Every structure is written in structure tokens, then in C-alpha cells.
């Protein structure tokens, strides 16, 4: 099949599934959802070839996008919006990750009937599939307007999925998530308008563009966006737009101090939704940095590098300390996400090849390990109906298979060499440590790496301490009769486990999917960053 057709099917397949779910009887909903997300996953796998043989990475940034569909959505006087989708190294791996996590999350929802709130199966699964369309569409969009539409499209299903089927404080968690994310979106909307009209000015045309690739590669637009004399309400245009976009994306990542919605949303959301939140939704923020902020506003990015890197390090350390203080199992995993996403931001901030690679790898690694961890928490919560770390103990003895898989999952999250988490963190730290060799003015980089490295120690501390309290120790009577993982649970855990090991032992295959585009981006922004550094 034609690759662009496949990509369209991947994005809108879930929407078809949603229609089916709404038509079919309620008891069929979960089967349709499972099947839809599985088919979408398989379809997305057929996009691999051009990324494996490297032919997707010929030419410069955006010159050789794969699976492209481009047509006018609206084209009237003064306004041109395109339906423009496509894949490159930044988005491809994330598409695969999304389809995989969504499929496994659909499987996790299999026991929907046993949930505390188990009404409205149709609604749940319909929204679930709508969410999948939103996420995939965001990753594949090249037109910024389209990107924004898909970005917002994710909000509504998520609001309901948390708000209706969540835990005790679900309503508060849902609206907090909604308001925080919308706050980011409206800033993005302002930037969207500003960039559209500035691009029109730059190109001397009456109609601007929303094309993210054109923004990054068009010389005139780049000059205009990164011109230190281009003022917007008295401030530097590039910097203001970078900050607007950055805040919009950092809320999603989430970066300190906008992280407070996350523990709440994670804890209140049902297990599969937590898996999606941690595994995919947070990645959108980081993806936004890589796709929008850095290639388009390299000058501002360079000038603000210290600030961004600091935010990343704060996330790493602060998130880890928060983890140490948690007694709720799920909350601990939620805060660990905050800590891990800090590495991603740090890797992006230093703008070196190793740093970018590490950040991308960490995005994927965390996309594998965090849903696995949330699922592991879900498994034990289904049996024990509480999540108090201190009330557990000796679970490994009672549930040996579960215990083994759990240890693997948490070690992957910890960053144990040989598992996926290690590679990302190591690359980020290496890239940061060396950044002052690449960009002379980043004299602060080695120090930043040293501080961030302490995060690794803290991560080990909270994970090992948690494992000790939950899985090790003496058996407890109240958990005596707990059944080990069921076949379904094992089937969900094994793909995660296999990928965690595969990515840890042979990271080259993963790097291969994205390195080409990372090089293209860095080549593209090099002149601008060099200029901004005064070199």
C-alpha cells in the first residue's frame, strides 16, 4: 500500500473504529477498540522500510518527508491552511510508540466491567479512539494549524476519560488538566497568529504560511524570526514567540512549575489512561520543542539555553525528591515521569548531537518504561484495591512472575545499564557535559551535567527503596491468595519488557530511526546558533 494512504489510515482508522463503537452494541465496544488499535498498530509497522534503509534521511531537513499528504484545506484571500501530514525521524518512532501503547492500553481496558465506574462502555471506548486520532494526528502534522487542531482534539477525550472514569478526586483532576493544557494552547494560538503574519511579511506575500518546515527552512522567514531587531510589543519577536510556544509545550511535558496537574491526573485516571498520559501525551510536549521551538527559533533557543537547561535539571532533581516522599505507589510513578522528562529537556536544551539523540531516545525509553510501570501498579491495585507502598511487602514471593516483570520494568525506569532507560540518560548527560566544546558560551554545561547526574543516584534510591518495600521483605498474610499475572496481563507486559531489553542492549536500531533527521535539524540551525553565540 502507498505509504501516505497508510499514514492517513493510521490517523483516521481510530475515528472509523469510534463510529463502529457508537453503532455496535455496548458489549462489543472493547473488542472493536482492541481490534482497531491493533490494526492501526500493524498498519503503522508497514511504514518502517524507508526509515530502516536510511532513504528517508536524504537531503536537508524536511526535504524528504515520508508518507506525505498535502492538499489545501482552506485557500481564500489572505488565508491558506493545508492538510499536510508526513513523517520524518522526529515523528516516525513516536507514531509507532503511540500505536503500540494505545493498543496495549486498549487491552488493559479489557477488564472495564470490573472497574469502580463501569458505566458507559461505549462512551469510554469511543473517546479512547478519538484520543488516539488526536495524538497520531499531532505527531504527523506538518501544518502548524493542523497541529493545533489535533493538539486540542486530544483535550476533550482526556477530560472525560479522567473526569468520568477516574478515582475519588476525578472532577478536580480533570478540570485542572483541562485548564492547564488550555492555558498552554492559547499561548500557542497567539504564537500561531504572530508567526503566520510575520511569515507573510517576511516573504512579501499577502498570504502567510502555517507550514512548520517552511518556517524552519525558508531563509527569509528565518531571518525575520531570528532577527534581533524584530520587535514585538517592545520585546524581541523570536524570544517572545519562543517563550509562548515553550510555555505551551512545557505544560504538557510537564516542566516545573507547571507540573502540578500531572500527579493529580495520573493518580485519578484509570490505569490505561495513565499509561497513555505517561507513555504518549507527555511526549507531545517534548516533540513540540523538537518540531516547533528549536528548528524555527534557534537564536532564541540558544540565548535561553541556560534557562531551559536549568528547568530540565530542576525537574530531574525535584521530581526525584518528590518520589522519595511518596507513599502512594501510583503517585511515585507519576513523579518519576516528571523526573525522567527532565532529562529530555536537558538534552534538548544543549543542542548537541548527543544531547538531541539522548533526548529522543529518552522520549522513547520513557514511553516504554512508564506505561509498563503504570500497568504494574494497576495490576496490584486490581488485586489489593489500595496503593499504599508501606502496606505492601513480599509480593515477589506471592506473585513470582509479576515480581520478576515488575523488577524489570522498574529497573528500566531506573536506568540500569542494559535496559532502555540507561541509554537515554547516559546520552543526555554525555551530550550536556560536552556541550561547552560545541557551543563555546555554554560554559555552564559540565556543571549542569554533574548536578543532573545526581538525579541518577536519587532515581536509584527511590526505585530501590520502593522495590524493597513492595516486592521484597517478608510475605504478608493479607496478600496471600493473590493470583499471579493472568495471560492477558502477561501479554501486555511482555512487549514492553522485550522492547526495554532490546532498546537497552541494541540501541543502534532505535537511533537509526531518528539520527538522520536530528543531524539535519542541527545542520539547519547551526548558522543561527553560531550567530546568536556571537561566534
Amino acid at each position, binding site marked *: 500500500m502507498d505509504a501516505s494512504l497508510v499514514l492517513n489510515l493510521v490517523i483516521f482508522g481510530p475515528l472509523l473504529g469510534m463510529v463502529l463503537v457508537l453503532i455496535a452494541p455496548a458489549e462489543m465496544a472493547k473488542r472493536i477498540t482492541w481490534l482497531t488499535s491493533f490494526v492501526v498498530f500493524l498498519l503503522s509497522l508497514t511504514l518502517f522500510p524507508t526509515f530502516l534503509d536510511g532513504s528517508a534521511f536524504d537531503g536537508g531537513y524536511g526535504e524528504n518527508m515520508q508518507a506525505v499528504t498535502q492538499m489545501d484545506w*482552506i485557500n481564500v484571500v489572505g488565508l491558506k491552511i493545508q492538510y499536510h501530514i508526513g513523517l520524518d525521524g522526529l515523528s516516525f518512532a513516536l507514531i509507532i510508540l503511540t500505536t503500540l501503547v494505545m493498543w496495549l492500553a486498549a487491552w488493559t481496558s479489557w477488564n472495564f466491567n470490573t472497574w469502580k465506574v463501569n458505566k458507559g462502555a461505549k462512551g469510554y471506548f469511543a473517546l479512547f479512539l478519538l484520543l488516539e486520532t488526536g495524538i497520531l494526528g499531532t505527531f504527523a502534522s506538518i501544518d502548524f494549524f493542523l497541529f493545533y487542531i489535533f493538539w486540542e482534539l486530544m483535550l476533550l477525550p482526556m477530560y472525560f476519560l479522567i473526569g468520568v472514569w477516574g478515582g475519588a478526586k476525578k472532577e478536580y483532576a480533570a478540570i485542572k488538566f483541562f*485548564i492547564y493544557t488550555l492555558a498552554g494552547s*492559547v499561548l500557542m494560538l497567539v504564537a500561531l497568529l504572530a508567526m503566520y503574519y510575520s511569515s507573510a511579511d517576511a516573504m512579501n506575500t499577502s498570504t502567510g504560511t502555517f507550514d512548520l518546515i517552511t518556517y524552519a527552512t525558508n531563509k527569509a522567514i528565518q531571518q525575520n524570526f531570528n532577527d534581533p531587531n524584530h520587535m514585538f510589543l517592545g520585546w524581541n519577536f523570536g524570544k517572545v514567540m519562543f517563550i509562548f510556544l515553550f510555555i505551551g509545550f512545557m505544560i504538557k511535558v510537564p516542566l516545573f512549575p507547571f507540573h502540578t496537574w500531572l500527579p493529580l491526573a495520573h493518580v485519578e485516571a484509570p490505569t490505561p489512561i495513565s499509561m497513555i498520559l505517561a507513555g504518549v501525551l507527555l511526549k507531545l510536549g517534548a516533540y513540540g520543542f523538537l518540531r516547533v521551538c528549536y528548528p524555527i527559533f534557534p537564536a532564541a533557543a540558544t540565548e535561553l539555553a541556560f534557562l531551559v537547561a536549568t528547568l530540565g535539571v530542576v525537574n530531574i532533581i525535584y521530581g526525584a525528591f518528590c518520589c522519595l516522599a511518596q507513599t502512594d505507589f501510583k503517585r511515585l510513578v507519576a513523579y518519576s515521569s516528571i523526573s525522567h522528562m527532565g532529562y529530555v529537556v536537558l538534552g534538548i536544551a544543549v543542542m548537541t548531537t548527543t544531547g538531541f539523540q539522548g533526548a529522543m531516545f529518552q522520549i522513547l525509553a520513557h514511553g516504554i518504561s512508564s506505561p509498563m510501570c503504570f500497568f504494574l501498579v494497576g495490576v496490584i491495585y486490581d488485586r489489593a484495591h489500595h496503593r499504599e507502598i508501606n502496606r505492601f511487602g513480599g509480593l515477589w514471593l506471592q506473585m513470582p512472575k509479576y515480581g520478576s516483570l515488575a523488577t524489570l520494568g522498574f529497573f528500566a525506569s531506573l536506568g540500569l545499564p542494559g535496559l532502555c532507560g540507561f541509554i537515554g540518560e547516559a546520552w543526555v548527560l554525555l551530550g550536556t557535559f560536552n556541550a561547552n566544546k560545541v557551543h563555546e558560551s555554554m560554559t555552564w554545561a559540565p556543571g549542569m551535567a554533574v548536578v543532573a547526574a545526581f538525579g541518577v543516584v536519587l532515581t536509584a534510591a527511590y526505585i530501590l527503596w520502593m522495590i524493597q518495600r513492595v516486592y521484597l521483605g517478608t510475605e504478608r498474610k493479607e496478600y496471600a491468595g493473590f493470583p499471579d499475572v493472568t495471560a492477558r496481563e502477561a501479554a501486555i507486559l511482555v512487549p514492553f519488557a522485550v522492547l526495554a531489553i532490546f532498546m537497552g542492549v541494541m540501541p543502534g536500531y532505535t537511533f537509526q530511526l531518528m539520527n538522520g533527521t536530528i543531524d539535519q535539524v542541527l545542520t539547519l540551525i547551526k548558522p543561527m546558533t553560531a550567530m546568536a553565540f556571537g561566534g
Partner: protein
Amino acid sequence: MPQSMLASMWMPSAEELSQLAPLFALVATIVALLLAAMFTNRNRNVAASIVTLGAIGTGLLAWKRLQSGAPSWAGFDPNGMGPMLISDTFSQFFIVLACVFMLVVTAMWWLGQKSDLPDSEVHRMDATEFFVLFVGSAFGMSLMVSTTNLLMIILAVEMASLPSYGITAFRKKNRVAAEASMKYVLFGAITSAIMIYGASLLYGYYQTLDLATIGMKIAADMQAGATTGTLFLSVAVFAFMVGIAFKVSAVPFHFWCPDVFQGASIEVTTWLSVASKAAGLGLMLRVLSVIICAPSAFPVEAFKYVSLAIAIMAALTCTVGNLAAYRQMNLKRLLAYSSIAHAGYMLMAVAILWSPTDAGIGAAHPAFSAIVSYIIVYLLMNAGAFFVVAMVYWSTGSESITAMNGLIRRSPMLAVCMAIILFSLVGMPPLGGFMAKFYLLMAVWKGGLYWLVVIAVLNTLISLYYYARIVRAMILTDDGLPEISAPMSGQLIVAMCTIGIILTGVLLGPMKEIANNNASNLYAVVKSDVAPRTASAAGPSAATPNTENADTAPTIP
């Protein structure tokens, strides 16, 4: 003497009269209503049927003129002093909208009279009076978008307002309704007075009632290098705009709105929430298109202040509307504040239209177009939202937010539609509300009022919370209220509104095209610089500009 008077009297030709067919049809509907009441013993079903037929007929007549590519400027000019009435695509477009909305409101009346609430008692008894007033206000609103004559504008605004006061108080034994109507009358009277004051200043100074001529004279003054009189002109224009601001319930002329919306029966509230605002905005655009057409070539100092005043008014309107909606428990009152907020968004584009800067003039066309798009989507959203509230009200007798609790179980269809409508009101993509707002923000941005865009997006954020409160009541809360027995036809209307909202959000082309066409028709006039009406002399009876007058216009003291 009588002989010569007769000769100088203007008699319209049949062709000219036919251009006013939609307006005549509305008047005929009123007459038919009154006559039918005499012969059918005030049968309410007959009355409602007549209104339905009248609305369809008027709508078709206007639609036909709209389709036939009616001249963009067909004025009725009895004595060479400028047209009294105008019939062009712009006015026909608004008349079609009004007719569609009349049908929605009549359908609501039809369904509502079946419930056994005290409101429907009144509806059953006094249907004729209700409908006469209702069609009367529709006629007034149609006039509002069909004229550029100062006197006609004032008459049209009064024609739209007076029946509205009456139907607001139609729940006769209801104290809230009486109070609301009283407030409405007082506010209406005061703002009318201010408006007439502004009009008289303009007339007194420029010695013409025709806005286009006034525009040309302003231009001539500017050309002659007159720099004085800025204060006079800004006061006159702003005072004139107050009357229109009252119609669109802009802050600080909005106090009537929540009380009237709460006090009036839901049909009336629905009608006023959309039609009154659409007509007000239509008139505003009309006034703008002629009064600023000529000076658009010159930076009129006065308009800078008017623009700023309207921009501040717009910012206040949406902020006050959104913040006040937070505390409301009554759905109609909440939607009233929401409608104030939406008027604020639309006024933002109006501020751009007054802006005499280069950026503002460049953004005039998108701003016109954006307002028209917004009105279309706003009509769909409010019709849908009020219909849901109405059906919940008929079934429960309550207008409180708590009446919505658990609607997803009690009537899944209504709840899903309402949720979509509410998120469209917030401005969430990919719904029509977002696209309309997006066009609007684009125009405002292009016009250079960046701070206004920031205020608009912040307001979007604020508004999320109170709209989400209704969603939360419908979907996240459930206190076991009984199911809603919503009439099928009502559900169908709500579903159609919802589909319309989704389509306007996803298929961007058609709506934008309609809006652009409308804007172009008006804008064609705006763009032609000094002699606005010569450019559109294609119209059957367009007046030739009275240039001598313009040249000898007195300099402003």
C-alpha cells in the same frame, strides 16, 4: 402648490418595490396575524402557522434575491438626499438569518406550549399578541440592516426594541419578567436618547441624514486639512454607537441583558440572544461601511479614539461577561453572560474596522468577514444551547444548572450535543466556535491590536471553567433525576445545530466563502475612496454623490 408637491414626490417603480419584497412579506405576516385572530377566534395554532409560513416566505424571497446576485448597492432614494432603504446581498443575508431563527423560535414555542408549566399557559392564551410583537421585532431588525439613513436607523432600532420590551414581559404574572421588562425599557430609552443625541450632532453639523454623505464630508474636511473638530466627531460618533452597543449588550450597556434573559420566557430569550445581537452587529457593519468608506483614505484622528473606545469596550465586555458567568446557577442567566462575552469578541473586530491606521484599513475586509462568520456560528451555538435548556426546562420546570445533572443518562443525545455546543462556545477546535474565533483573532491581529488578541485568548481560558461546569453537571454528576422526555423534533433541531457546528469547524471553505462574499459586497463600498456611491452606481437607483455640498462643508469650529 399641491400639484407641484405631488410632482416632486417620489414614487417608487414596481421594480424598486419588488426589491423590498422580504420586508413587505414580514409586514404582511403581521397583518395576516391580526386578521386571522379576528376570524379564527384567536386560534393559537393558526397564528403559529402564519408565522411559520411568513418566515419561510420571507426567507425564500430574501434567499432568491441573495442567489440572484442582487446588486451590491440598491438604494431607495426619494429626493436625491441619499437612500432611505437599501436592499443588497448584505441585508438579504441578515434577513435570511433572521427568518431561519424565527423558525427555530416558533418551533420552540410550538413544542413549549405542550408542557404544563405556567409559561405555556400564557402562550396558549395570547398567542396572537405574542406573535405580532415577535414578528414586529423581527421586522425592526430587518430594517436595521437595510438602511444608512440616520432617521431610519433610529426608527428601525426602536421598531426592534419596542416589541421586545413587550414580549419580555409576556409572562404576565411573573414578577421577574415584569422587572426585567422595566429595566429593558429604561435602558432602552436612555441609550436611544444618547443615540439620537449623537445623530442630531451629526445631522446638525453635516446637514444631512445620509451616512454616506456624512462620510464624504468628513473625507473632504480631511482632504482640506481640517484638524480641528476631533472631539466633536468622536463624541458624536460614539454617542451614536451607544444605541447599537445597547442592542449588542456591550459593557457598560449590558445590565438589562442578564435580567431580561432570566425573566423572559425561553423562546424570547433565545430570540433576543441571537437576533438582537446579529441585527445590532449588522447595523454596526452597515454604518461603518458607509461612514468610514470615504475617510479610509485619510487618517481621521477622531476615529482613532472611537476605535480605542470600542476596543476597550470589547475587552471589558468579554471579560465582564465571562467573569460574571462564574457565579451563575440559572442556566438562562449564565447563557446571558456568555452571550455578552461573545458580543465582546465580535466587538473586537468592530474596533479594527474603526481603526484608521494602515494595519486597521488592511484588516477591514477580514474583520467584516470574521464578524459574519461569527454570527453564523453563534446562531447555531445559541439555538442549540437554548433548545437543550428549553427541553430540560419543560421536562423539569427548572432552569438551574442542577436540572442538568446526569443528563448523559437521562437523555444521552441531548447531553452529547450540548457538550459539543458548549465546547464550541469555549472555542475548542475542531468546532465551528473555534474557527469563527480564529478568523476573528486573525483579523484583530492583522489590524495591529495585539493586546486585544491576548485579552481574547485569556478570556477563552476563563470561559472554559463555567462552560465546563455545565458539562460536569451533565456528564460527571448524577443524582438520579428522572429521564427527560424530549420531543423528537426538538432533538432533531439540536442535532442539526450540532452537526452544523462540527461542519463549520471541519469544512472551512463554505462558511468563509459566504462571509467573504458578504464582506466583499460591503467592502466594495468601503474601498472606493472619496466618492463611495459612484463606484457602485450599477445599482438601479444609486444616488450620485453630492460633491458640491461636500466641498462647501463648513469647517469645524
